């Protein structure tokens, strides 16, 4: 009896957590289901009947294909730049003791503590004053690298903190140059962190609306396309494309986690691991 009574709060808490998870997933289920809807009227908000049309012709809505293409291009290029610059910054911050490290740490944190409207409005003020580059692809790219940088630095940094420096010292002891040490030891070991930072940057870039909205000029990305459509017509095709992006990023994420596990296993291999040291033959 007491065991059951003691268990009661456990059930309650687990059930509550389960409900919270359902709350998180409910809108995603709605999007998935409504990508198969054949809506009445211009808005895909009410269920009418099952249809595969949107999945068969995902780009049937005029303009959506170009918007998606622009979004992917910007996401890929801004991810590459932000990941490269952010990784270097993170290396400097974790590996070296230098004057001004604490203020730099704080400075990199500030963009994260700044509302997106402010980031977007400030950057637009600058571009308007400069008069160039013309608002469009280039300015969106600059903006995306800017807001992704802090996220990359923080992600890679958290990975570097748990890094075993003895491995690098070993490489140098064995005669590797600093560059060889970086390329053959450091980089492979921090690669999982760099990959998850890149994935995060890609997801943030392809999803960004607010900052892009300020700095896009007449260029249309996928989120900007949805924003424009939200006032006129929301076709189920938009849900289909959202589902595709969703499935792609989740697949990439699972791949990254898997890769991370493998790297962790590799990194934990030490000469003192029992299975690597030959057991003395008995007798």
């Amino acid at each position, binding site marked *: 009896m007491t065991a059951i009574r003691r268990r009661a709060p456990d059930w309650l808490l687990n059930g509550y957590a389960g409900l919270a998870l359902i709350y998180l997933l409910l809108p995603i289920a709605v999007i998935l289901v409504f990508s198969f809807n054949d809506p009445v009227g211009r808005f895909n908000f009410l269920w009418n009947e099952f249809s595969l049309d949107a999945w068969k012709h995902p780009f049937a809505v005029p303009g959506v294909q170009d918007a998606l293409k622009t979004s992917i291009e910007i996401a890929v290029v801004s991810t590459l730049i932000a990941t490269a610059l952010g990784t270097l*910054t993170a290396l400097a911050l974790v590996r070296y003791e230098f004057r001004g490290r604490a203020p730099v740490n*704080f400075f990199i944190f500030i963009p994260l503590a700044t509302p997106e409207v402010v980031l977007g409005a400030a950057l637009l003020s600058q571009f308007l004053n400069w008069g160039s580059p013309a608002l469009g692809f280039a300015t969106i790219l600059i903006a995306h690298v800017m807001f992704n940088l802090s996220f990359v630095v923080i992600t890679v940094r958290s990975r570097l903190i748990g890094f075993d420096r003895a491995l690098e010292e070993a490489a140098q002891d064995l005669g590797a140059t600093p560059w060889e040490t970086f390329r053959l030891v450091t980089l492979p070991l921090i690669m999982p962190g760099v990959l998850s930072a890149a994935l995060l940057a890609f997801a943030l870039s392809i999803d960004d*609306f607010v900052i892009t909205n300020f700095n896009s000029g007449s260029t249309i990305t996928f989120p900007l396309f949805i924003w424009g459509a939200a006032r006129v017509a929301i076709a189920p095709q938009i849900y289909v494309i959202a589902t595709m992006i969703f499935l792609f990023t989740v697949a990439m994420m699972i791949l990254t986690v898997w890769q991370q596990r493998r790297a962790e296993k590799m990194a934990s291999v030490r000469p003192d691991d029992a299975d690597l040291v030959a057991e003395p033959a008995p007798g």
Partner: protein
Amino acid sequence: MPGALRKRSLPYLLLLPGLGWLLLFFALPLVYMLLESLKSGSPFGGGFTLTWEFSNYTDALKDYDKQFIRSYEYAGLATLIAFLIGYPLAYVIAFRGGKWRNAMLLLVIVPFFVTYLIRTLSWETILSDSGIVVSTLKSLGIVSEDGRLLDTTVSVVAGITYNFLPFMILPLYASLERIDHRLLEAGYDLYGRRRDVFWRVTLPLSMPGVVAGTLLTFIPAAGDFINAQLLGTPKQYMIGNVIQSRFLVLNDYPTAAALSFLLMASMLIIVLIWARIAGTEALLGTEGEAR
């Protein structure tokens, strides 16, 4: 000693590109926006000229005090609800997740992989007048017969809460997961009841996560304008809506810039107060770096 010199300058060389980008496209724009906020003139004809018009700030506050207050009310409410939903979930994942821990964490961040605007639009379906939520609440008598959820404060706050909930859960989880279980056992060994151990050991130890989570939820929530626009009406408009329309629709740059600065300044004050309470190390996540 060229080697030593190189070694000393290396961290700065590594920093240069990333930090340079942030200085040029984050810090410098703030200067331009500051100058913009002190200009006067009109978007038609002459444009704006710098006249150190400090009254832009007082005017902006006077004209949009309602939206400012509303932003903080909505963001505060959404942060509180997100905490009430998020803490138990983070607790269960951290202490009872077992081998399902990573899978559950994946489910927490999965909403991020759906385009923000679409996530918000799907709440339009969930809360629609003929939807299951409204009809259920009507049959329970919680919502009156002609009542609705869409285009009300409820739908806007619900949307904000939903969109920023993962920002609350992840830091909470990170700090709960780090708690040394021996400390909890010590609490039980000293005859603490579950409740006592939670209030006096678990919760205080998870404070860095609480601070980071509330901040990461509150900041984007207070600046948000998408939820108010898509799930509300002008009666629910927040300060973000004003900045967006002043800047991009009405081209009234000085007012928009002044409002942006007021928003940013109030955020920084909140961050600094929190940092005082929690300590910057916890806030910036810089514990355990090379000393």
